[in-house]
């Protein structure tokens, strides 16, 4: 989003192994060789930046941490420059630790099962086609700004029962929280407040006029004792669904289209064998996983033989785990018919992404509808592809030429 101010600069990295920084422009541009370098050095590396932060570099080390809720807390989910007090109910269940995690998570699971997603699919196909209608005649398009960006935001708005036409507002909040907020606390707080005010107004409205969307669903939820959720819990979960539901899948769809634009052989194979799209989606998720989570070390322990000390953050890079050659043969290659693919793009353990079934459906539908109507496309050599910084990785500018005449 080049129209929004950029975060404060950090000193450039000269020693990746001992001083890594996931907001460095080199990492933003092309993180893959950096991860290889870090992995070759150690299964867990450390930086003094961000007030002290570890990064597991192997699939095994990532799995160990993701499954260890005793030594690692989820209360902070973004590695940032500051560590202010954590608010209770920041964004449950992703910010919750056991034992409060499970009931909060179970509440959100039923609306996101594969069956529930099937019901949403026709709406998604319609949204994709509406978006394509808007640019197909132009012969060129920024596929990130005009296609991938609006698919997930409109899907989650539809589910929450808030106007799809407010999409740009939501996208701006997410940018302030997940990118600018890493280095500028005020941006994060401003966006969080605006979101809370927005949702509070919707909650008030539903008190007199109940609806059948996710906001009413959360308002009507009862715990085991039959009590409604605290207001802050409802708000926190709504914030989570909006934040988590948007630029994650936007990024995954964008990276997938980017790959197909520059890899004609894969594009032609999917055109000839559309049944392969679900398998290809898994591989694209592995190779270009968008989301890196965080943990905070709350008790000293060892991970893959490396000591980790309390008080440090952990950059829990599922994307780096998914490039570990010990886990995936030819990890650096995109093999669209890869059969064995236990990728961790949606996380592992109790914090597995609640929206994974939604994201998968959106990706499949977005690629299917695009390929049906735009079988031929390529990167526009006159334009530049740019990538987001920090927590979620995906193309933010994706200039394409459409059609055969290239």
């Amino acid at each position, binding site marked *: 989003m080049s129209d929004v101010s950029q975060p404060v600069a950090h000193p450039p990295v000269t020693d990746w192994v001992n001083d890594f920084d996931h907001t460095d422009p080199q990492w933003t541009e092309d993180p893959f060789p950096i991860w290889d370098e870090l992995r070759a050095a150690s299964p867990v590396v450390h930086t003094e930046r961000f007030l002290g932060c570890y990064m597991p570099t192997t699939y095994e080390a990532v799995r160990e941490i993701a499954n260890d809720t005793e030594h690692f807390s989820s209360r902070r989910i973004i590695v940032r420059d500051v560590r202010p007090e954590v608010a209770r109910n920041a964004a449950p269940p992703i910010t919750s630790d056991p034992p409060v995690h499970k009931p909060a998570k*179970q509440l959100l*699971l*039923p609306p*996101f*099962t*594969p*069956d529930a997603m099937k019901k949403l699919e026709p709406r998604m196909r319609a949204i994709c086609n509406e978006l394509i209608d808007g640019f197909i005649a132009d012969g060129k398009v920024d596929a990130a700004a005009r296609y991938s960006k609006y698919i997930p935001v409109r899907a989650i708005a539809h589910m929450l029962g808030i106007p799809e036409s407010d999409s740009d507002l939501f996208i701006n909040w997410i940018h302030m929280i997940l990118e600018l907020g890493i280095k500028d606390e005020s941006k994060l707080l401003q966006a969080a407040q605006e979101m809370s005010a927005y949702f509070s107004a919707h909650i008030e409205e539903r008190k007199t006029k109940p609806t059948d969307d996710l906001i009413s669903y959360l308002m009507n939820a009862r715990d085991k004792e039959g009590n409604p959720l605290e207001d802050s819990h409802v708000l926190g979960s709504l914030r989570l669904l909006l934040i988590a539901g948007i630029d994650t899948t936007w990024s995954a769809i964008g990276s997938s289209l980017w790959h197909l634009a520059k890899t004609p052989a894969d594009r032609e194979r999917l055109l000839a064998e559309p049944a392969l799209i*679900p398998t290809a989606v*898994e591989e694209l998720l592995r190779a270009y996983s968008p989301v890196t989570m965080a943990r905070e070390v709350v008790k000293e322990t060892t991970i893959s033989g490396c000591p980790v000390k309390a008080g440090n953050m952990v950059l829990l890079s599922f994307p780096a785990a998914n490039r570990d050659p010990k886990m995936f043969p030819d990890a650096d290659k995109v093999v669209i018919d890869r*059969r*064995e*693919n*236990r*990728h*961790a793009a*949606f996380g*592992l*353990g*109790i914090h*597995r992404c609640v929206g*994974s*079934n939604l994201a*998968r459906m959106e990706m499949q539908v977005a690629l299917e509808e695009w390929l049906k109507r735009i079988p031929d496309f390529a990167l526009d050599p006159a334009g530049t592809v740019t990538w987001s910084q920090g927590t979620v990785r995906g193309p933010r500018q994706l200039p394409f030429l459409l059609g055969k005449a290239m």
Partner: protein
Amino acid sequence: MTERLKVHVDPDKCQGHARCKALAPELFELDEYGNAHEAGDGIVPPGLEDKAWLAKSNCPEIAIDVIEE
């Protein structure tokens, strides 16, 4: 004589990624939370052996066992 296969989901490990259901819908069922269990007694009907192995090798939580009897 080919061996008979049986699939089993470890409910403590399953986190509801639903990969098994997508890859082998005949062999797995999901509960209201999207967590998986084997369909029926887990016995893999002839012809679906490949799907059983595929589900096992794609479960991110290593929650699926394929037992050869």
